[in-house]
């Protein structure tokens, strides 16, 4: 019973990180119908920026804020400079461009920072919490992870629903032609979508890197799992992304805990293949086909 509790809470904690990556993918998919394969690479790069700031200032939170700001700027710049060039072309162009971006960013990180593994500080203590004598299997930092991702998701949901800019973003996602007809500057909205995705991705990078170490490919596996979570959630819905992340995190945690940790990645990929085969539109959406 105590094992079960530990595995569940661990799963929730890592699931929140998959949820953050999924959320950033959903933000971009809704606006531009592009799957951003470079999302993990962008997050890795902002983590390096954070590490430099942390080492210089000795202040974790200065690095944290810088990483989020760097993600915001990186997303906006990539949308303007690169992604916009393939807008309206064949979908495969965008796929190849975003994979190219990933290779470029990882290569650049290797050139600048080298390929060695660097340890990365957590925001809070990673000592396991316990209630009385019962170990919970999670730390203060895990709690912070869950709170940070849920807060980001809730802030996005509220902004989408209740603000003018959120209404513009949703209108653009659903029907860019009609949005333009009503005076929405769709180009700016798409830039904002990429910028927010860059920010959420950077948050995921800050949260996960303490447990993966930092190196140019450090986000690759996390990205695949985040992508799987997004597909489970249906790619369209921020809520779906969070639920998809949680489901995947808990399932993988049970798989790793009861069957052996070597199986986690295989289970993750298996889940992706299974969802794409059985419900390509995601568990939460009405059946509809799409091309990627």
């Amino acid at each position, binding site marked *: 019973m105590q094992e079960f509790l530990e595995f569940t809470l661990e799963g929730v904690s890592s699931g929140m990180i998959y949820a953050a990556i999924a959320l950033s993918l959903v933000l971009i998919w809704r606006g531009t119908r592009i799957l951003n394969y470079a999302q993990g690479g962008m997050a890795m790069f902002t983590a390096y920026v954070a590490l430099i700031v942390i080492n210089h200032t000795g202040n974790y939170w200065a690095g944290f804020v810088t990483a989020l700001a760097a993600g915001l700027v990186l997303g906006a710049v990539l949308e303007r400079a690169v992604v916009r060039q393939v807008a309206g072309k064949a979908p495969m162009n965008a796929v190849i461009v975003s994979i190219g971006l990933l290779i470029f960013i990882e290569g650049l990180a290797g050139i600048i920072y080298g390929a060695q593994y660097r340890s990365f500080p957590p925001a809070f203590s990673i000592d396991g919490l316990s209630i009385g004598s019962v170990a919970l299997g999670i730390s203060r930092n895990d709690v912070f992870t869950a709170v940070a991702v849920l807060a980001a998701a809730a802030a996005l949901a509220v902004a989408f629903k209740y603000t003018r800019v959120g209404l513009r973003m949703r209108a653009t996602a659903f029907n860019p032609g009609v949005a333009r007809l009503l005076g*929405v500057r769709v180009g700016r909205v798409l830039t904002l979508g990429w910028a927010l995705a860059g920010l959420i991705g950077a948050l995921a990078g800050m949260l996960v890197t303490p447990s993966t170490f930092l190196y140019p490919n450090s986000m690759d596996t996390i990205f695949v799992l985040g992508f799987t979570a997004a597909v489970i959630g249906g790619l369209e819905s921020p809520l779906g992304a969070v639920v998809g992340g949680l489901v995947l995190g808990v399932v993988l945690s049970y798989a790793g805990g009861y069957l052996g940790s070597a199986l986690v990645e295989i289970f993750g990929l298996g889940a992706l293949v299974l969802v794409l085969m059985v419900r390509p539109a995601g568990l939460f959406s009405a059946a509809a086909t799409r091309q990627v």
Partner: protein
Amino acid sequence: MSRAAALATEDVVAGYGAVLVLDGVSISAAAGTITAVLGANGAGKTTLLRTIGGFIRPRRGRILLDGASLAHGRPEEVARAGVAHVPEGQGVITELTIEENLRLGGLLRDGKDGKAALADAYQRFPVLAERRHRTAGTLSGGERQILVIARALMAAPRVLLLDEPSLGLAPKIVTQVMELIRRLRDDGGLTVLLVEQNARSALAIADKGVVLNVGKVVAAADAADLAADEALRRHYLGF
């Protein structure tokens, strides 16, 4: 409501790909008037509205709003200049609620004016008020058409481009919509370019009429004179 603006096209040539649809179209609509744009299917009526609305970049010619050139090929800037466009058929965003569709139309105004416009829209169209929190996809074709017109008015436009507003509407609602268009003009707030298959009902409320045939203007005159011209009616208007 802001003051109406004059709208004119000068020698506009436009089309899709290799197909030329408008072949040197010049029309002018005085501020605060209703101009009916008439003609058979394929005459270029919708293309003319889409070109003015910024969805098609003209190959030649200019579009003038109160004498100043309108942005070509950028619908969002045309909308921001005060030209609202009600496209033919489905212009609602079905995934958003009725209220969100309306609010979207009012985003070009500041928050307080937008709220007042929303209250106006609900008063004019009670059918929208009753279902404000349902998604627009749940509305019937006629109700969607009303929503699109109401949404265009949310922006307090200076010029309204209406493409077949009566399509799919029950006769009673058509009368109501035409009456509303007439009232908006009478209040001095609006210049209307009205594309209609139903030439008779369009000319009944219009000040002027323009008849297009295969991309050229073949007649432009007072609405009453057009309606009285039997040869023209028989050739181009079919009533």
